[in-house]
């Protein structure tokens, strides 16, 4: 199967450089992979690796653009249309998670791992896991801070789940939407080589949140220094994934706009993580405590 695809790409390889914008070439490529959509998602692991190496070449943007045509085969009201967003195998999801944890300098997350097959499985379930990880470990850390105090009455604080869900899902969907709109607008002014679809941006944002799951679990440790070191590491890793992914998309633009975009992306990311740390982990539940526990409460706060 992979060999057939390679042949097909070879066919266009020589003309693709000159006819990148030729609609006829794109149309043909829609037809052929569309006939065998079942074989496309699940190649054996070995051949997937080969494709990986191939696509790391410098002319991969044409190929991925051609491949992107196969997505639009069924209309949006059918169930099959939505199945294309969940068309991933276990090893692909693991590879993407690994890619978001270990960013390689100079490599692009979308081109390296997503490769025109953006999935919504990862973003959705990573967000869901993160919501519960933050809510539950925030609750546990609150419990550990007050451990041993006779007057402390444990409460599950179930309300935090809904707040965390609102914050995380809003971040993982609205920021990509705004970024996509912004990149579209800039693309209409300055022609960029790299342009991302909305789903690719959502995919990158979803997977970039993965590192916060282990971070949130480790945030249970009620030590301020440990927490801030953890948040710095997580920010460095996922922020660099985001920056390296979106830098090629704005590189051709005005230097000031490009820098401002990247800085905004990283700042929003920082706002999310620091905000979560401050709201879910550092806020002592004053209103649940009787006034007699103010003094130990302050010692817990300072520690």
């Amino acid at each position: 199967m992979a060999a057939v695809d390679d042949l097909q790409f070879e066919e266009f390889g020589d003309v693709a450089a000159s006819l990148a914008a030729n609609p006829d070439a794109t149309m043909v490529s829609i037809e052929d992979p569309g006939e065998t959509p079942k074989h496309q998602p699940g190649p054996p692991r070995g051949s997937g690796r080969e494709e990986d190496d191939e696509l790391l070449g410098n002319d991969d943007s044409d190929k991925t653009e051609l491949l992107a045509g196969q997505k639009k085969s069924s209309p949006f009201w059918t169930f099959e249309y939505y199945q294309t967003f969940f068309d991933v195998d276990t090893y692909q999801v693991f590879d993407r998670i690994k890619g978001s944890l270990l960013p390689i300098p100079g490599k692009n997350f979308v081109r390296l791992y997503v490769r025109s097959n953006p999935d919504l499985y990862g973003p959705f379930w990573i967000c869901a896991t993160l919501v519960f990880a933050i809510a539950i470990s925030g609750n546990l850390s609150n419990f550990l801070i007050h451990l041993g105090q006779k007057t402390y009455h444990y409460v599950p604080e179930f309300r935090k789940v809904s707040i965390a869900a609102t914050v995380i899902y809003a971040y993982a969907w609205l920021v990509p939407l705004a970024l996509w709109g912004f990149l579209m607008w800039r693309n209409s002014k300055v022609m960029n080589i790299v342009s991302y679809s909305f789903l690719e941006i959502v995919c990158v944002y979803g997977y970039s949140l993965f590192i916060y799951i282990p971070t949130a679990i480790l945030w249970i440790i009620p030590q301020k220094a440990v927490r801030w070191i953890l948040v710095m590491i997580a920010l460095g890793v996922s922020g660099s994934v985001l920056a390296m992914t979106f830098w090629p998309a704005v590189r051709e633009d005005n230097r000031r706009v490009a820098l401002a975009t990247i800085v905004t992306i990283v700042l929003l990311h920082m706002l999310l993580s620091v905000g979560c740390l401050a709201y879910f982990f550092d806020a002592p539940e004053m209103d649940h405590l009787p006034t007699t526990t103010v003094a130990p409460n302050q010692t817990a706060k300072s520690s």
Partner: protein
Amino acid sequence: MAEAAESPGDPVTASSRPLFAGLSDISISQDIPVEGEITIPMRSRIREFDSSTLNESVQNTVMRDLKAVGKKFMHVLYPRKSNTLLRDWDLWGPLILCVTLALMLQRGSVDSEKDGGPQFAEVFVIVWFGAVTITLNSKLLGGNISFFQSLCVLGYCILPLTVAMLVCRLVLLAEPGPINFMVRLFVVIVMFAWSIVASTAFLADSQPPNRKALAVYPVFLFYFVISWMILTFTP
């Protein structure tokens, strides 16, 4: 269909007799196989009417449904390769379990708004919305299981956790302390593992092998959250 079947024998008899009489005779006497085929669904429908819910006593109806639900409970408690839970799905069991769980998770105090435990509606929504999301997820991943079958399995597999909730409430009647908590933790972990094993025994086969982990992970998260709610319950 009947016309086509009787056509081979038709010319011989039709020539010797009047047309209409012959046709009616033939259709009765010669077309036994066709007639038989037609009456097979009829007979089963008659059998259905015999045991229909219209003329049996209310007690029988209720007992039959309860027996079906109870049989499925047994399947969950002793999970093995069987299709009963998948074939005749119903949502009565999940409804009973979900309401029981949500009622037991209610706190006695009036100001339960303040102590931050899950409300009845929150438990209800988490169970049903979670089950629907997991089902949609497995359908989107390409699993060959129907929507309600999956809902039924996920709902019935809450049974061990409902039992854990019952045990926790009984344990909480005793003196609170670390031992009390350890007992509850142990019960909830065992029942959580039980729920996972039972639901994966029924659901895992419906997925292609290279996506099994992707379909099982949400189930794990779902039961983990319910277990967390049960473990953190304090009256």
